[in-house]
């Protein structure tokens, strides 16, 4: 049914919106930005912070615009002296209960609360009384929770429940003891949190941030006994520029390589090389399952948040998940074996770093299985945010850098690799290879357009030599829960499913640059731009199929021998196990679509 439109006036400007819009949405639609803290366009609205109050003719008090629905003839004022005063008072009250340590804070200059205080013209601290105090929880490999900085907006609780279906967090107690955290006040590491970091993207303050890897990296970079080697994930290259004023989606691969060398890394490899390698191993695993009656559907395994989710919430699907390690961990294992031997470096002296769009990768590299080289394969994972920070700390002028080059023998990749960073990309890359390996024919077109786009769940049927292969692509774990449930109920049937933990895939990873300006996490334009950046890199490559990467051919010839072979098993594959405590997922919801 067509929604009825209503007319209203906001600050004297006419607006026409559908009758179920909120006042805030109506204002947004005509370019008026009402200040906000607890509202997020992708999450349910709770009206908790009251920063978004407005004056409405006929209303007794000042309603919160994010939870007030429009009506015909409504007259709204967002910018009167009384409203400015009210907002300022609200923010002052929040600040009175907030640590006064912006200069030494993780989110300094990147903090919604700080920003708001400045724009609203808060000039003094009112009641410098006692503040609440909680201990910092840094138990998790990925997320640090500093409740003293929490303003109880509840966005983390909602993103974790509504987008990820994990429900690791809730608001507990009341009054001055009110806090946000896992059940039973337990530590993050003992909770059902799957380390995705989406909460750090929506948190308006530094109450939730990633675990620091910068200190250890700098320490090792200045240690003459260490050989520091680094790898860069696909999705990082189209987002890192945002921290230096470039538009989202700008490809900064080679500037990043140059910056990493200036920071002191001796060797710079490309995770895209091991993405190609993943396709070879995973493609062969899929063909084997398909042709020998193995467990289907097969699920991809490169997203560590999804793996932890699987182990915590849906262990019954463990055997369906590819045993392939993620590209990061394949690269990690090869650096300390293959490369160490080739370059004559003692693997004990290698300090292996990876730059990832992801906080869950910090958890992945610390998993006990990830020691196939005899050492921890990847020593430290830095997020895109952390890399940007290191570049700034080192005084490197990013915008003036001359492009650098990756090192052989693991620095070249095909067009199938960059798209690992966006939902649908792993599937497309796998199809390009699986099709040609099975049919021994050249694909008419390498572009599988059906699997692209930011929808939460996508489906496609691919004809491979007369066999109809049903594939699905899913991102955001609430959607994954829906998909798995419907597979169990027999409502969905697939051969191959790609899963990415974060909305949009790695381009929307929990470790990406905080959206700049008025942009929010999960913004469709922002994510489309980043993803377009990756598809452009794909298109501009001469070789666009993983199995045609000459360095991949070389590494099999020289070292790995054959896909799914003995060495592959030892270095490139892994296993999973049910986790505890077992998670109880949210109830099924409609598919969450970013775009």
């Amino acid at each position, binding site marked *: 049914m067509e929604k009825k439109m209503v007319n209203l006036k906001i600050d004297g400007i006419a607006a026409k919106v559908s009758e179920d819009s909120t006042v805030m949405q109506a204002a947004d639609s005509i370019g008026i930005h009402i200040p906000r803290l607890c509202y997020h366009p992708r999450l349910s609205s709770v009206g908790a912070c009251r920063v978004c109050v407005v004056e409405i003719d006929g209303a007794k008090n000042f309603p919160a615009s994010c939870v007030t629905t429009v009506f015909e003839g409504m007259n709204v004022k967002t910018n009167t002296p009384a409203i400015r005063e009210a907002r300022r008072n609200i923010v002052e009250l929040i600040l009175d209960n907030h640590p006064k340590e912006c200069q030494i804070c993780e989110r300094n200059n990147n903090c919604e609360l700080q920003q708001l205080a400045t724009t609203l013209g808060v000039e003094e601290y009112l009641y410098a009384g006692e503040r609440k105090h909680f201990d910092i929880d840094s138990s998790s490999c990925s997320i640090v929770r500093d409740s003293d900085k929490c303003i109880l907006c509840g966005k983390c609780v909602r993103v974790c429940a509504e987008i990820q279906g994990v429900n690791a967090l*809730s608001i*507990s*107690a009341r009054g001055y003891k009110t806090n946000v955290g*896992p*059940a*039973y006040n337990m530590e993050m590491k003992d909770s*059902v949190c799957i380390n995705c970091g989406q909460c750090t993207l929506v948190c308006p303050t530094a109450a939730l941030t990633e675990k620091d890897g910068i200190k250890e990296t700098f320490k090792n970079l200045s240690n003459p006994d260490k050989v520091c080697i680094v790898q860069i994930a696909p999705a990082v290259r189209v987002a890192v520029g945002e921290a230096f004023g470039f538009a989202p989606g700008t490809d900064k691969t080679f500037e990043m390589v140059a910056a990493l060398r200036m920071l002191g890394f001796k060797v710079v490899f490309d995770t895209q090389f091991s993405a190609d390698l993943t396709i070879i191993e995973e493609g062969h695993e899929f063909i084997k399952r398909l042709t020998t009656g193995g467990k289907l559907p097969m699920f991809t395994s490169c997203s560590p948040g999804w793996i932890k989710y699987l182990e915590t919430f849906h262990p019954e699907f463990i055997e369906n998940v590819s045993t392939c390690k993620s590209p990061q961990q394949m690269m990690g294992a090869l650096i300390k074996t293959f490369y160490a031997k080739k370059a004559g470096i003692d693997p004990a002296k290698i300090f292996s770093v990876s730059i990832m769009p992801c906080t869950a990768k910090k958890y992945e590299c610390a998993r006990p299985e990830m020691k196939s080289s005899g050492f921890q394969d990847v020593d430290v994972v830095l997020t895109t945010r952390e890399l940007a920070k290191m570049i700034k700390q080192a005084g490197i002028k990013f915008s003036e850098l001359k492009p650098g080059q990756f090192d052989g023998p693991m620095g070249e990749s095909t067009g199938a690799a960059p798209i690992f960073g966006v939902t649908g990309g792993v599937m497309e890359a796998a199809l390009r290879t699986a099709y040609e390996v099975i049919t021994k024919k050249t694909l008419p077109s390498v572009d599988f357009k059906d699997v692209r786009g930011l929808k939460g769940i996508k489906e496609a049927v691919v004809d491979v030599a007369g066999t109809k292969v049903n594939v699905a692509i899913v991102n955001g774990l609430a959607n994954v829960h829906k998909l798995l449930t419907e597979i169990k109920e027999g409502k969905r049937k697939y051969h191959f499913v790609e899963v990415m933990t974060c909305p949009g895939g790695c381009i929307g990873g929990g470790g990406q640059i905080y959206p700049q300006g008025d942009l929010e996490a999960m913004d469709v334009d922002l994510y489309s731009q980043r993803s377009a950046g990756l598809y452009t890199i794909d298109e501009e490559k001469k070789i666009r199929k993983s199995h045609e990467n000459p360095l991949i051919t070389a590494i099999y010839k020289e070292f790995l021998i054959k896909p799914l072979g003995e060495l592959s098993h030892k270095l490139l594959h892994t296993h999973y196990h049910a986790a*505890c405590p077992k998670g109880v997922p949210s109830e099924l919801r409609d598919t969450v679509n970013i775009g």
Partner: protein
Amino acid sequence: MNNTCTCAPELKEKEKQDGIKELKEFIKEHKLLHDKQGALMTVLHKVQEIFGYIPREAMDVVSESLGVPTAHIYGMATFYNFFSLKPKAKYQISVCKGTACYVAGGARLLERVEEELKIKLGDVTPDGLFGLSITRCLGCCGLSPVIQVNEEVFVRLVPEKIPAILEKFRKQEKKTK
């Protein structure tokens, strides 16, 4: 790999096991009568009735059988004042925090009780015998500082007298056994 759970405290006491059994039966009977939120409230009240408080094991059971994430249950159980997440002590010690008692040294009484019992404000001793809380003026300011143990009030206290008071209740407890 085996899924050996180490995260939840084991159910040791027979009482608790019986309680959990009763709880499960209750949930089975009442599950379909309400929407989830309503069911949760009813079930949590039942938990409080069975155990006298809301133990974590019980919340785990409720979570699994109603399909509600533990974080939500915890949020709800800590929000309402009529739910308690700690077992009730047999003897609840309330140290008066009114102005008169405070001026007369109430804080030192509190410290001493904490020291003697090795618990913090709001906690209960592991044997469930003593709990520690503070209270507002008890109306006997002339006799400050005071503490109250269950219904009994002790007046004009100095910290040195605390051990004897605790001992008195320990003895009383032995006799009743």
